């Protein structure tokens, strides 16, 4: 047994905000959009393996010295959400973009799972 497992992995017991997402599927793949406002690019952690996608981001807000919160709707320092992927998605070919707190992740379907039109031959 190896006790010194990866220390940089996110600890899932810490409370996190659930980012709202949109998931749109078309013939060639799936597009996921997630709202992660306040997360700089270097604090976004995307993990995509064969059957799970995990999104984790840490909020960084510039604050003046001596500030105290008088009202807070965003009251946790991180976002986290996990999805189970289906087999026909090719996670190796996924492409992610992150601008102004919006993540756009495109996961294409594996070539064999793409719809094909079958030509019918005349008898």
């Amino acid at each position, binding site marked *: 047994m190896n006790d010194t497992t990866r220390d940089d992995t996110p600890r899932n017991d810490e409370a996190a905000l659930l980012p*709202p*997402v*949109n*998931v*749109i*599927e*078309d*013939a060639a793949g*799936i*597009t996921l*959009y997630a*709202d*992660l*406002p*306040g*997360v*700089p690019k270097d604090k976004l952690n995307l993990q995509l393996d064969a059957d799970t996608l995990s999104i984790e981001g840490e909020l*960084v*807000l*510039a*604050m*003046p*010295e*001596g*500030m*105290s*919160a*008088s*009202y*807070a*709707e*965003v*009251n946790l320092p991180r976002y986290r959400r996990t999805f189970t992927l289906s087999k026909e998605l090719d996670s190796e070919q996924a492409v992610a973009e992150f*601008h*102004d*707190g*919006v993540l756009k992740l495109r996961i294409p379907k594996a070539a064999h799972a793409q719809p094909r039109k079958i030509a019918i031959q005349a008898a």
Partner: protein
Amino acid sequence: MMYRSLFPRDLFAEFDRLQRELQQGIGLSPSIRGASRGFPAMNVGSAPQSVEIYAFAPGVDPASLDLQVEKGVLTISGERAPDASPEKSTVHIDERFAGRFRRTVTLPDDVDLNQVVARYQDGVLRISVPRSEAAQPRRITIK
């Protein structure tokens, strides 16, 4: 009396009361302007030199945001465009806000509304409203 009501004090009214009490207990007193949650989510911070307002509005073009102050009420409004949906697509999850939005914050009295600074970074609009000179803490020297 033989008859006893099954719901002695109306169970559902009791649940409502319990929920209200819980909300009050954790400091979630509802705003007079209605639903306290919406888009963009907001945080307000109080510092000795300024009041800081954070509006969590990801994916909004800063040029389309409108900020106005009138009679001590700050209004943030704008619009967020829906995602492009290709032809023959299926929407499986649709949780993100799209469309026009508008939220207001009541500012304290001791701020200088002529020096409001707003910046948009990583999807967060941060509005700094400095406190007026007279309201800032000062050390008084004793002669």
